[in-house]
């Protein structure tokens, strides 16, 4: 058995996990405020192509990442206006965003087909650390966004559970009436975190584009990662640190089919390997359900419910 391939798979798992963590963190912040944004897949796609076009025309990766994040925030802004201000159904609005985003991304991507970005984000160098057998390539050959993302996820846990604004955010998702009674604006908090969430998802999409694929391919760029990110939030029980481990696990599942193919392990049809991450998520979701309650473990208690003061 070729150990290099397994090391490469693990390293790739960390790479994919970066997008997953960013997208899932975006969803997590949004959901912690009580807003369910199912539009992740649409936002990822649109920000991916926007960042590509921006990086291509400006020649700078960083401009690309910035534009991608901004586009993510704008799309999430549509969702925020519809659901928080106009009190539309969050589920339908999110799905509309997926369809709109997919169409928009493919429309914008038309001229980009077949192009590639020339500059890529270079991995950081850790000198001798990279040469540690096995662990070196897995842990120490990534770029600054990957490390930044993991640090940000850990920082998010601290923010959520140890600071005053974090407490207000969690309260808005659990019991908006109390937040309202404290004199805080539920709508404002929800809009703020929906926008932040959109920017994070957008950054994830941009990074996926610029650091990983580097060429726009309309069908295969995201490949359902947005939906996996949403499942990942549930899997992690709405906790940012558990998100990191979940994302690496999911990333490994996503890479495994390619590795098994390379290893010529063929007694399992490749279609069934493609199903693996989705099936694993499905099993995890069912296993984490609590009988008798609509809320999953750790779910914000008023997730998906619009807050209407005069109805109290």
């Amino acid at each position, binding site marked *: 058995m070729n150990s290099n391939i397994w090391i490469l798979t693990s390293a790739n798992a960390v790479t994919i996990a970066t997008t997953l963590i960013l997208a899932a963190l975006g969803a997590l912040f949004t959901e912690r405020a009580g807003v369910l944004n199912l539009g992740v897949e649409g936002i990822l796609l649109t920000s991916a192509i926007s960042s590509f076009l921006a990086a291509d025309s400006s020649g700078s990766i960083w401009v690309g990442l910035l534009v991608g994040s901004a586009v993510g925030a704008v799309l999430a802004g549509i969702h925020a206006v519809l659901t928080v201000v106009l009190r539309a159904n969050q589920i339908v609005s999110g799905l509309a965003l997926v369809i709109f985003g997919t169409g928009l991304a493919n429309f*914008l991507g038309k001229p980009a087909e077949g192009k590639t970005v020339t500059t890529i984000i270079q991995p950081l160098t850790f000198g001798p650390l990279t040469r540690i057998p096995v662990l070196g390539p897995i842990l120490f050959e990534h770029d600054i966004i990957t490390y930044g993302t993991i640090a940000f996820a850990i920082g998010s846990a601290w923010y959520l559970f140890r600071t005053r604004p974090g407490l207000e955010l969690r309260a808005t998702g659990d019991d908006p009436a109390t937040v309202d009674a404290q004199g805080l604006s539920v709508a404002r908090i929800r809009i703020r975190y929906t926008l932040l969430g959109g920017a994070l998802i957008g950054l994830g999409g941009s990074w996926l584009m610029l650091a990983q694929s580097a060429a726009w391919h309309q069908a295969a760029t995201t490949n359902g990662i947005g939906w996996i990110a*949403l499942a990942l939030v549930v899997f992690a029980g709405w906790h940012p640190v558990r998100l990191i481990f979940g994302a690496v696990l999911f990333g490994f599942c996503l890479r495994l089919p390619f590795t098994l193919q390379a290893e010529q392990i063929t007694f399992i049809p490749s279609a069934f390997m493609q199903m693996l991450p989705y099936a694993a998520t499905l099993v995890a979701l069912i296993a984490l359900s609590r009988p008798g309650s609509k809320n999953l473990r750790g779910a914000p208690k008023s997730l998906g419910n619009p807050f209407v003061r005069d109805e109290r």
Partner: protein
Amino acid sequence: MRAPFRIVFEQRSETPKYLSAFVPLVSVLAALLAGAIFLMATGYSVGETYSNMLQDGFLSSRGLTDTLGLSTVLICMGIGAAFAFQMNLYNIGGEGQGYLGMIGGAWAGLALGPHLPSVIMIPTVLLIGAAFGAVWIFVPAFVRARLGTSEIVTTLLLTYIAASLVNHFIYTPNSYFRAPDVTFPMGRTVPDSAKLTALGDTRMYPTFFIVVALALFLFWIVKRTEFGYRIQVIADSPRAAHYAGINARRTTMQVMLISGALAGLGGATLIVGEFGKLDPGITMLGYGYAGIVIAALARNNFAAIIVSGILFSGLRVGGDKLQITTSTPIHIGVMLQGAILLFALGGEAFRRYKIRTVRMQAVAQ
């Protein structure tokens, strides 16, 4: 710094009838307007794009029959989505249930077609397709009813699994569903007894009328039967339903299974109709996702779904032909679908609430 006025939402006790038709109409126009601005900003011709879409989607006789033909599967997906949505069950996996309907329909056609006459085969293919769709939603329905697991993510994940299944059946050498004599991987066409003939020189099949009749039948079920009433009570107030002795678990199972079956039926209409075989191209078409939009735009009203289904079908048919007639990317069609739904959602607020601006002093605490 606060605004000198605030916006007040007043719940309407009764929605004026004209608004129910007016709001969707305005949303469509607003989406077209937004699309026009977007087209101008990206340097494409608005007039050329829209007039071509209108011509190829609705006005030419070829376009209109193509639109009605495509609307068959879209309406079917729409009523499937709406059947679950009306009880606040968000089955967004109609796409995958549709694939299973195709697999089931193709299997029935290939296995039984050579032995049975058309009169028996057509209903068999449709029913087995529907049954396969119901099977595909069984696990999400069961865990939703028993454990409360959110059906949104589970139904969607199963769509990806269903797509892999379709690919497996087509790309595996010597697969039962694969055309045997060609090296290029493609589906094996079902025997003639399992296929309907198109109406005249069109791409419309008699299934269109079956699906429209089914939509009207469901409209009647929901408005006029005890089963429909049960669904409404659970949707409006689960607690009231509980005290009224309605078994919500069982109704949840029933509603979700029917929803899956309708989506499966949609897939099977493609077997007796346009495709005639299991075709991996289905995974690129997104009919199931379009069904969600169609249902939402019609606000889960089964009669209105016929209209919104035909409208969306026309947008697709007209949009897809843009590739031939203009330089505008065909994806403008999908974009417009999403935009229409977004505007319709925003417009919903005007239907449910009276929205007024009030000077700040008037509401000072």
